[in-house]
């Protein structure tokens, strides 16, 4: 053997026969599944139509794609989708604000504040969210009116009629928001715990207040830890909002159920709703990727490439390979 590059021994990579078999099996299974998606089996309903005096009959799609197509952008479904988005945004905004406050309270040196925060988390994590939803919906039975005034006296400044103020939609926002606050506080706490105590000390040593060091130094770094589970929570909330239909809020899944109650095409409408959930989840996941990249500043020596950058790199790599091959074929000097 020589160490000369030209005569160097050819490297024979290990042949992974087992892996090749696995690939073939998986490819066949995927093909079979995709085939079932786009077939009209004979057990489905036969529908006939007459066009230019020619009568044609056809079985329906297994997955009712024509129904899905018809209802996908129907006004009921779109209204439901908007409701779902509205609920998700309001509940998450509430949950995040409450979560941050509760997490900071947990770290307070005051025993009362920290144990109040603990109890809040204990209660809202410890009871089913559906129960909480029903509870807030029935809130006016417990507290028919609420007023702002001086506690424990008869002095009141203004009174709110709970029954008319807290609508079904409002009670869903409150229920999901308060519940999310409990979970989110733990996410924030994990983020704060992940940041080295030295960062706070350094911030304080240059004269920052506790609040400044939290806001300018600790939280921005904790974001890196907080973001992935937050993405989880938003996506989970998107689907949890479907519970709101139990108190009469017609959101995406509720709208789909209303339609299928009339036409009995339950599965096809569930597919319609699920496709929308998937689309929104996809958009959220993309947003999460870029947010995470933004907050990774300084944490990694080199931030990971975006998918677009990665594709561009791959293309550049292929182009380069093609180029050198042509160059070699043309009889380039050694």
């Amino acid at each position, binding site marked *: 053997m020589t160490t000369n590059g030209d005569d160097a021994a050819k490297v024979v990579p290990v042949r992974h026969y087992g892996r090749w078999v696995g690939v073939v099996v998986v490819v066949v299974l995927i093909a079979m599944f995709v085939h079932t998606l786009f077939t009209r089996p004979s057990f489905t309903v036969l529908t006939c139509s007459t066009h230019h005096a020619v009568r044609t009959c056809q079985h329906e799609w297994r997955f009712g794609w024509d129904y899905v197509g018809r209802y996908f952008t129907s006004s009921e479904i779109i209204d439901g989708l908007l409701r779902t988005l509205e609920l998700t945004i309001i509940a998450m905004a509430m949950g995040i604000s409450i979560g941050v406050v509760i997490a900071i309270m947990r770290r307070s040196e005051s025993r009362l504040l920290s144990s109040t925060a603990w109890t809040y988390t204990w209660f809202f994590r410890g009871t089913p969210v559906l129960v909480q939803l029903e509870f807030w919906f029935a809130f006016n039975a417990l507290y028919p009116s609420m007023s702002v005034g001086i506690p424990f006296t008869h002095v009141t400044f203004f009174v709110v009629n709970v029954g008319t103020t807290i609508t079904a939609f409002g009670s869903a926002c409150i229920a999901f928001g308060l519940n999310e606050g409990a979970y989110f506080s733990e996410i924030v706490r994990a983020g704060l715990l992940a940041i*080295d105590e*030295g*960062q706070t*000390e*350094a*911030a*304080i*040593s*240059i*004269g*920052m*207040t*506790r609040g*400044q060091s939290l806001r*300018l*130094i600790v939280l*921005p*770094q904790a974001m890196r830890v907080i973001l992935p589970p937050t993405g989880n929570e938003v996506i989970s909330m998107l689907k949890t909002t479907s519970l709101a239909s139990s108190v009469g809020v017609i959101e995406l899944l509720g709208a789909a159920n209303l339609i299928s109650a009339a036409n009995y095409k339950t599965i096809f409408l569930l597919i319609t709703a699920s496709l929308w959930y998937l689309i929104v989840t996809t958009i959220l996941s993309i947003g999460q990727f870029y947010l995470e990249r933004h*907050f990774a*500043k*300084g*944490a*990694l*020596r080199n931030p990971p490439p975006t998918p677009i950058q990665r594709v561009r790199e791959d293309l550049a790599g292929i182009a380069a390979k093609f180029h050198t091959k042509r160059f070699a074929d043309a009889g380039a000097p050694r």
Partner: protein
Amino acid sequence: MSLPMVEALGVHKSYYGVEVLKGVNLTVARGEVSCLIGPSGSGKSTLLRCINHLEKHDKGELRVDGELVGYEAHGDKLYELTDKRICHERSQIGMVFQRFNLFQHLTVLQNITIGQVKVKGVNDDVAKTKARELLARVGLSDKEKHYPSQLSGGQQQRVAIARALAMEPKLMLFDEPTSALDPELVGEVLDVMKDLARSGMTMIVVTHEMNFAREVANTVYFLDSGIIEESGDPRTVLVTPTSARLKLFLSKVL
């Protein structure tokens, strides 16, 4: 003689019943460099952190620039200062940590400007100009856009010194500034500190670098189990120690 920069009289500090400082007396004059040496657990870092009020001392009197640290005396009572006042006091005392503690999410330049802008309310451009001057002083002008994780330990510590100096402190505290560094990087940090000492900065340095202490310090304090066992001119104290404990300590570190 003018007012000393730091004056400690019988300073005590306990953590959960364990007494870490058992009555420390120390006086650091303006423009002087003092080194605190001693075995680990002897209370060196705690004393330093008390001076900056990162830790509250339990008993005794601690003054920086003539003013009580963390308290205000009215009559015969001591009133705890508000957070705002304590922050203001701290902003005039620079601190350099063993593990640098640079703000990981900010660039080198932002690390040095953030305190000026957010604490002192300095204009952004003025803060940047000052930060660049300081970076030049610690020899890192070409690194201003880097993040801390992209720098070596020695470079990070020099940035940390620049960050502290940006607040224009009247006193600089160093808590084992070279202990976390690879041996070949220690020199660059000590050079910056020597330069700072020559410029007349009052410095208190917790260190294991006996050569630095001998070369730069005006006074060396040897702490052992919470009290100052021996102190004085480093050329005498480190060469001809009188106490048995210091003799033993020096025989181990030299």
